[in-house]
């Protein structure tokens, strides 16, 4: 049993078997291509179809009802192959070059729309660059050399994998022709076969299946000429957006890779303590490698999925390729899983920081001979040159010890007539017991030389305890009427010391401060303090002047005063503009 179709050939209706129909359809299509660009093609086609109808009628002879593949082959035998028709035609080169002639005068309906494919005949890895080379008509070798540069930049690998997934392989001869932007017709498919690149079966058959809807589409395109214009504009916009998405994705990918593998940690810090990497610091947070790895993959998934989405969106808009369905389906679960994993490890981590504990020791120090005690810093053996205010630069791992450069020294009033030193070691843990253990394991260092207290600007704790907010705070207690002097270098350790003049820590250094009932009071008031304390009003006033000028021209107010109330937005802008300066001034005090 065979399926039959009904075909109208030149006004006569025939029942025709499916394979016979396809052969005939392909045959007529080839003839059409052969006469592409010839005047009176439609008439020739009509004549030929009429003749074919006649031949069918003769052959069926009223006895049979269905046109079979044999009938079609017979009729084609009588009519001859399209390339033989050119024998009597004016075509250049005559019969011998029929195929090429047809290719040159190609027809809109079948001209290959150029598409991006992976080239299986020219591949090193996945054929991606071979395909891109065919698309842009560039030697893939050049592209490969350029790609190597991208590979070293880092994101080339991700890009390649995405392209590999997204771009289809040119598996069929028609794909291969599309890849090079050549016309898809039987001649060219034959040629691809002849090039030895092909083991595909039923290629021409598939082509004929696809040719029919394409022909319909083309005719409606002609009708919608303006629609086509709009479409092209949209396509151009789409390509532009695609390029933007691709650029954004590539940029983010670079950022991610720099962050993950870069020796130059441009995001967080540019000057980590020697030998310590961001990964080491991150590992300090986690209980074990398992937890760290889970978090690690979750973060990568969380960031990578949107990047892949951006890159894929860009590629699909630029080159009009679509990924297989599983691609999109798998990305979403990966992202959701990343969020869940991150939430779980986040909660676990938060638990590790749940309970704080502080071990406080009150140390009776040798009382200084005079009225003044000196505060100084021991040599910074670990973090010399680091920025104290960047915590990440103040972390170092040495063997099984973690060293932090965060100890602080504060000053407050003594309850009696003696100088005291209070040392508070703080840490956190999942319970009071663990927090206590963490705090007790912290080691620190201070010395007293006569009337000088020297504090080491670092502390250490065992690596196996992990980072659990360990820190050491020294509090020097000054009796009423006695004084403290901050020696040069003590700015490395003193932190947020309250005083009656609201002087910043660095400004307190090199001077003597007496404890009074209202707080630490400077022995003499240097002029610099006032300057530093003055609000940045000067900047604001200056900006106001220029604003007024602009406001006067815009509002045409009768006087400067009338324009003033309307300046509110510009005024606000001015303040926000000078924001960084304010912050910089305040920062050491925080």
């Amino acid at each position: 049993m065979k399926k039959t179709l009904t075909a109208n050939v030149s006004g006569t209706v025939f029942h025709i078997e499916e394979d016979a129909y396809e052969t005939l359809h392909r045959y007529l299509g080839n003839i059409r291509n052969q006469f592409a660009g010839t005047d009176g093609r439609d008439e020739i086609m009509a004549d030929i179809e009429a003749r074919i109808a006649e031949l069918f009628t003769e052959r069926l002879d009223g006895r049979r009802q269905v046109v079979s593949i044999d009938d079609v082959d017979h009729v084609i035998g009588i009519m001859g192959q399209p390339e033989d028709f050119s024998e009597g035609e004016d075509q250049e080169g005559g019969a011998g070059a029929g195929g090429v002639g047809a290719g040159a005068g190609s027809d809109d309906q079948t001209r290959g729309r150029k598409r991006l494919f992976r080239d299986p005949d020219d591949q090193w890895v996945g054929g991606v660059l071979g395909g891109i080379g065919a698309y842009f008509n560039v030697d893939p070798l050049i592209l490969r050399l350029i790609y190597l540069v991208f590979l070293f930049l880092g994101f080339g690998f991700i890009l390649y994998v995405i392209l590999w997934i997204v771009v289809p392989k040119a598996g069929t001869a028609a794909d291969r022709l599309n890849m090079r932007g050549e016309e898809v017709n039987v001649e060219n498919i034959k040629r691809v076969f002849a090039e030895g690149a092909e083991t595909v079966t039923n290629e021409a058959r598939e082509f004929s299946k696809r040719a029919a809807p394409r022909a319909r589409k083309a005719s409606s395109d002609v009708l919608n000429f303006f629609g086509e214009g709009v479409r092209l504009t949209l396509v151009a916009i789409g390509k532009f957006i695609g390029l933007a998405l691709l650029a954004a994705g590539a940029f983010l990918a670079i950022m991610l890779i720099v962050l993950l593998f870069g020796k130059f940690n441009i995001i967080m810090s540019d000057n980590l303590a020697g030998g310590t990497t961001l990964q080491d610091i991150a590992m300090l947070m986690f209980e074990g490698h398992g937890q760290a790895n889970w978090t690690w993959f979750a973060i990568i998934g969380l960031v990578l999925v949107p990047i892949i989405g951006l890159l894929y969106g860009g590629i699909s808009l630029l080159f009009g390729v679509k990924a297989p369905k599983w691609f999109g389906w798998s990305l979403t679960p990966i992202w959701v899983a990343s969020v869940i994993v991150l939430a779980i490890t986040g909660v676990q981590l938060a638990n590790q920081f749940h309970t704080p504990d502080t071990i406080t020791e009150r140390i009776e120090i040798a009382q200084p001979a005079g009225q003044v005690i000196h505060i100084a810093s021991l040599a910074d053996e670990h973090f010399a040159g680091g920025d104290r205010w960047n915590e990440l630069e103040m972390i170092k791992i040495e063997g099984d010890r973690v060293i932090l450069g965060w100890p602080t020294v504060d000053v407050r009033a003594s309850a009696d007539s003696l100088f005291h030193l209070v040392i508070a070691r703080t840490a956190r843990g999942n319970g009071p017991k663990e927090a206590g253990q963490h705090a007790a394991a912290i080691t620190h260092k201070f010395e007293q030389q006569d009337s000088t207290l020297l504090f080491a600007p670092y502390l250490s704790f065992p690596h196996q305890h992990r980072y659990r907010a360990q820190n050491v705070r020294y509090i020097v207690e000054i009796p009423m009427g006695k004084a403290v002097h901050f020696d040069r270098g003590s700015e490395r350790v003193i932190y947020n010391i309250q005083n009656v003049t609201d002087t910043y820590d660095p400004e307190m250094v090199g001077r003597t401060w007496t404890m009074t009932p209202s707080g630490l009071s400077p022995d003499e008031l240097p002029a610099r303090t006032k300057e530093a304390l003055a609000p940045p009003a000067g900047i604001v006033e200056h900006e106001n002047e220029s604003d007024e000028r602009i406001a006067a021209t815009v509002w045409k107010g009768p006087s400067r005063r009338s324009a003033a109330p309307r300046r509110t937005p510009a005024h606000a802008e001015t303040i926000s503009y000078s924001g960084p300066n304010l912050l910089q001034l305040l920062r050491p005090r925080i």
Partner: protein
Amino acid sequence: MKVENTKAQMRKGVLEYCILSVLAQGELYPSDIIAKLKDAKLIVVEGTLYPLLTRLKDAGLLTYRWEESRSGPPRKYYKLTTVGDKFLTELDQTWDDLSQAVKKTTRKNAQR
């Protein structure tokens, strides 16, 4: 240079001349023309004829009328126009001259 190309070039001119000659004998529809040309082994496949007919018609040498057929679609019956008649007369003359010339030269060659 391929012999097929030369053959095709030679046959091309002759084919037009022969179609016109065949039609000079009366009104015919393509199948009749094909039968005659096939008899003379001038053409092998029928498809060759249709573009030629269309071209000759477009050049004003031929004209056609439709005629209903008992066994299939309506048929086009072609005949010569007056222009076609004149064209054919000229071609007849040219053909005579050519065949004379060819005979002369080829015989000479054969004698050598």
